[in-house]
């Protein structure tokens, strides 16, 4: 008996088993570092291989005619192959490592069987050797070895439960058998009696057969393992990835389509779905932003970690809700991010493009979730593209499976032309800003906007109550000064009033969100556009912290997209032309926001070619918008761009140029009670300025009286108010004008414009008469004129009296009243009275048209 060989077998086996066990323990804790684990499995495999080689040489030496030798060789070869495979791949995945972890496990079990067989052989030929062997191995050694082998084998069982589905079942079945074999032998061995061992070893054939069968089985398992590994090239360190997906897909063939949704109880819970939707929106937005940053700084660990987290969360949620297609695409993307995270993949432009395509695809799928029914778009191509990208291969897409990104299709072709280091578009924010934003995010909660509106309304009611209290208090104070409680009542009312003011202030701010939310997506848009247009454009964003009403932030997005697209397409020139013109080849678009009083001013500036007023003029004449001889200043000409159907683009592209854009932009801005203006200098660039009120809900208004009726004029359209003498009014034909400083101001009498005399004899008149609210109207010496409208073209509105200025909530007056001319809505004043809020642009318009009809 070769004692040396036996001891080396013993030590190697022990070492391998201890390591194997610790590796498995680590694995079950989910703490194992992938690289470490990979290394461990490697060494284990090597050690086992060595062990097997020693065993085989020993066996060959002593009993060259035995059939075990080829078996051992085969198994050692297999193991060698496996470790080679490992080295080649150079990567590790929990799934594979788990199964690999179990295969050496089985092998060592098998070793035990083989060792038994081994022990048997010497027993058959030289009994003395057998005596030696049994002395050395039979008792504690053999028992311990077998017990050790047995334990890890059992330990793998609960883990393999995590490997769901058929693969797990297969593994389990495979593992069961060696475990059984081992346990049966160990039972017989654990008696610690050599006699029993001897009896057992009398029948070597069974053990041999066992070993053979096991080897064959393992060989098969390895084959399948390797086959599945080729599919599994993009692997993850997911604690429990679902092997169904990966094993279901064949690496060579295009991926099969899977049902988009799987019926699930969570899907029918509207609250859960709502949560899912809002969460996914947030994550998608963040992913967009972060992936852009990743392109800028591919080595930033924080960014990739953030992306990975977001992707993982979304995938998990999608899986829970049974949105299978969503989960699958997300899973692949996560895999990709994981490779990036481990520095195994460098996120160049091509990969980022694929990822963005994937995001678009996800967005479509998410939209389907929101709509409540599957949209049925194919996801297999996307999954395949992501897989290939993860392998670092280039890909050819048959079609873009998304609706949202028609630009991206082109982008792919241009992507190859653009070197990866050229990163057009997208300026990153300073880290200080980011930190601030992060801090802010953490301290927010989500509130249903509807509830907030109810709250705003209730507080409005409370404000009305307060004014009633105040009037009661006043009456009490003046008429019953002797009432003792009066003093403390007054105090309470005052305090109440003060608190109410504070509450009102805060509740108005609650609806405000930073405009940055609307700006963030533009980085992506500019990036995509600059690539598809082959231009180099930098987008600089500033003032994103300016706050605006939430509804405004939501609605300003579309007009801004249009304007930014215009700047990219028509504004910024190609790098060649820019260099010719002595500009830097990279164009700049500045998107900025700042607050000006009650307005927020959003500016989009580009340093492109600008707009030639002559071309606009010519086009306008061509289209019959203006006549040949009309004299217009530059501002008027540029204003023509906002006319419906106006486009100067020589050719229509998919980005802009159909001439339906700018008038829609203007309409949208007007709907938000904002103003838009365009200024341009030929060759230098174009600036578009949008002015928006801070909030739609609360409007500062000036209350005026005309013919006993009170009206509110939004302060946003008031330029100034002046007092004039009736004789200062001059007449030009039918129109009345007033010379204000060096301008002629057309005047509109509010009572005439609204035909307030029609009130005579109405129910409302009767009521106000009854209430004797009518004040004796003294002959008015002076007239009040409220100058309203655009600073360049003001109109004077003549009223009887200016009352005061106050914040009010403009409310709709219901479906029946929406077509009342010149009235934008109603507002409830402190004492419960309704005032009408005037629609100044409409008022100006109506007087103008009236004048035209008259003329």
């Amino acid at each position, binding site marked *: 008996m070769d004692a040396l060989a036996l001891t080396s077998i013993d030590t190697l086996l022990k070492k391998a088993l201890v390591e194997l066990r610790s590796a498995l323990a680590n694995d079950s804790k989910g703490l194992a570092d992938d690289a470490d684990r990979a290394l461990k499995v490697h060494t284990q495999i090597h050690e086992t291989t060595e062990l097997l080689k020693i065993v085989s040489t020993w066996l060959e030496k002593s009993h060259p005619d035995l059939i075990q030798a080829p078996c051992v060789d085969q198994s050692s070869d297999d193991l060698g192959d496996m470790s080679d495979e490992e080295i080649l791949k150079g990567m590790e995945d929990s799934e594979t490592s788990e199964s690999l972890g179990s295969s050496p496990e089985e092998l060592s079990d098998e070793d035990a069987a083989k060792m038994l067989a081994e022990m048997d052989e010497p027993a058959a030929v030289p009994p003395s050797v057998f005596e030696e062997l049994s002395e050395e191995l039979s008792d504690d050694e053999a028992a311990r070895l077998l017990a050790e082998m047995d334990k890890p084998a059992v330990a793998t069982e609960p883990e393999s439960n995590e490997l769901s589905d058929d693969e797990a079942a297969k593994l389990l079945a495979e593992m069961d058998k060696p475990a059984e074999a081992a346990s049966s032998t160990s039972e017989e061995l654990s008696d610690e009696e050599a006699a029993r061992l001897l009896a057992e070893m009398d029948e070597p054939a069974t053990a041999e057969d066992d070993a053979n069968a096991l080897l064959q089985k393992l060989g098969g398992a390895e084959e399948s393992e390797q086959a599945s590994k080729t599919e599994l090239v993009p692997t993850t360190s997911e604690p429990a990835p679902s092997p169904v997906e990966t094993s279901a897909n064949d690496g060579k063939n295009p991926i099969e389509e899977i049902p988009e949704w799987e019926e699930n109880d969570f899907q029918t819970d509207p609250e859960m779905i709502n949560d899912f939707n809002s969460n996914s929106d947030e994550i998608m937005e963040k992913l967009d932003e972060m992936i852009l940053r990743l392109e800028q700084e591919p080595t930033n660990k924080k960014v990739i970690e953030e992306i990975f987290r977001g992707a993982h969360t979304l995938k998990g949620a999608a899986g829970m809700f049974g949105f299978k297609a969503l989960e699958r695409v997300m899973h692949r993307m996560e895999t990709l991010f994981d490779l990036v995270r481990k520095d195994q993949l460098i996120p160049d432009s091509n990969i980022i493009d694929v990822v963005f395509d994937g995001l678009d695809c996800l967005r479509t799928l998410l939209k389907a979730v929101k709509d409540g029914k599957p949209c049925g778009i194919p996801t297999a191509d996307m999954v395949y593209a992501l897989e290939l990208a993860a392998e670092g291969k280039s890909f050819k897409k048959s079609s873009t499976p998304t609706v949202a990104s028609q630009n991206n299709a082109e982008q792919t072709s241009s992507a190859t032309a653009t070197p990866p280091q050229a990163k057009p578009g997208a300026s990153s924010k300073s880290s200080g800003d980011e930190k601030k934003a992060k801090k802010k995010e953490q301290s927010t909660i989500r509130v249903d906007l509807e509830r907030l509106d109810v709250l705003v*309304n209730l507080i*409005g*009611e409370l404000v*009305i109550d307060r004014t009633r209290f105040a009037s009661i208090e006043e009456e009490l104070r003046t008429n019953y000064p002797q009432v003792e409680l009066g003093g403390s009542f007054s105090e309470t009312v005052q305090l109440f009033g003060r608190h109410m003011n504070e509450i009102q202030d805060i509740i108005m701010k609650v609806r405000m969100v930073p405009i940055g939310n609307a700006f963030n997506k533009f980085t992506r848009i500019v990036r995509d556009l600059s690539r598809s247009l082959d231009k180099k454009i930098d987008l600089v964003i500033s003032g994103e912290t300016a706050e605006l009403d939430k*509804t405004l932030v939501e609605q300003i997005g579309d007009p801004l997209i249009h304007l930014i697209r215009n700047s990219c397409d028509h504004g910024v020139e190609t790098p060649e032309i820019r260099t010719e013109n002595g500009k830097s080849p990279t164009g700049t678009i500045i998107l900025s926001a700042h607050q000006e009083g009650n307005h927020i001013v959003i500016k989009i500036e580009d340093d492109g070619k600008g707009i030639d007023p002559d071309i606009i003029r010519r086009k306008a004449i061509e289209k019959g918008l203006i006549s040949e001889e009309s004299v217009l200043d530059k501002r008027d000409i540029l204003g023509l761009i906002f006319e419906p159907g106006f486009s100067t683009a020589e050719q229509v592209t998919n980005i802009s140029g159909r001439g339906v854009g700018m008038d829609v932009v203007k309409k949208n801005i007007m709907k938000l009670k904002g103003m838009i203006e365009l200024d341009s200098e030929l060759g230098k660039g174009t600036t578009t300025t949008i002015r928006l009120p801070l909030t739609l809900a609360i409007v500062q208004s000036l209350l005026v009286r005309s013919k006993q*009726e009170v009206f509110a004029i939004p302060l946003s359209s008031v330029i100034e108010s002046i007092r004039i003498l009736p004789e200062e009014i001059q007449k030009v034909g039918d129109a009345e004008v007033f010379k204000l400083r060096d301008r002629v101001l057309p005047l509109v009498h509010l009572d005439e414009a*609204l*035909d*307030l005399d*029609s*009130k005579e*004899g*109405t*129910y*409302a*008149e*009767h*009521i106000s*008469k*009854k209430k004797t609210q009518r004040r004796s109207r003294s002959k008015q010496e002076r007239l009040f004129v409220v100058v309203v409208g655009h600073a360049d073209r003001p109109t004077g509105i003549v009223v009887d009296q200016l009352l005061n200025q106050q914040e009010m909530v403009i*409310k*709709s*007056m*219901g*479906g*029946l*009243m*929406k077509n*009342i*001319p*010149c*009235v934008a*809505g*109603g507002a*409830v004043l402190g004492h*419960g*009275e*309704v*005032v*009408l809020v005037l629609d100044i642009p409409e008022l100006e318009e109506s007087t103008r048209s009236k004048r035209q009809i008259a003329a």
Partner: protein
Amino acid sequence: MSNFNAQLNEHEDPGMFSIRGDLDGGKENQGYSDVKQFIGLLINDEEFLLPIEVMNEIIMVSQLTYVPSAPRFIEGVINLRGKILPAINLRKMMGHETAAPTMQSRIIIAHFEEHMVGLIVDGITYVISLNQEELQNQTLPGKGRSTELVSSISKRGDKVNGIIDIAKIMMETGFDPNAKEEISENDS
């Protein structure tokens, strides 16, 4: 009719609104299912009925803001706890002259689908329960506008009253139910 007036005169406190009449009518007729309740209202001294399910509440005539260039039967807008509602004068809609509000004048807050309106009436009489047999779907061949709002008639006992159809009132105002989208836009 004189009976109502006597009752109305008895009712001295205008600040309170009380419902008189056969509230227990449903019991008499057993089975609630085929019993419908109506509110009686006065327009130009004539009693009309309005299905109670379209009515939300009845308020006093207090403040009313005149809206220039609104349809002539819309007297203005009222504030109902922060909500601004148009007030339709049923008198005018039925072609009568505007009368000054009296102590008996009320505004019925009614709704058609999700749209709420105030209906100015000269007075409220009582709540009445009618069996299906006591109702008759009938449009009237009247020449005046006063019959245009009536879609059915109650024929309980020897008393005959027109039942006002809220849908017809809304139609009269030129309300377009298809214009809902814009309304919601305005609301936001």
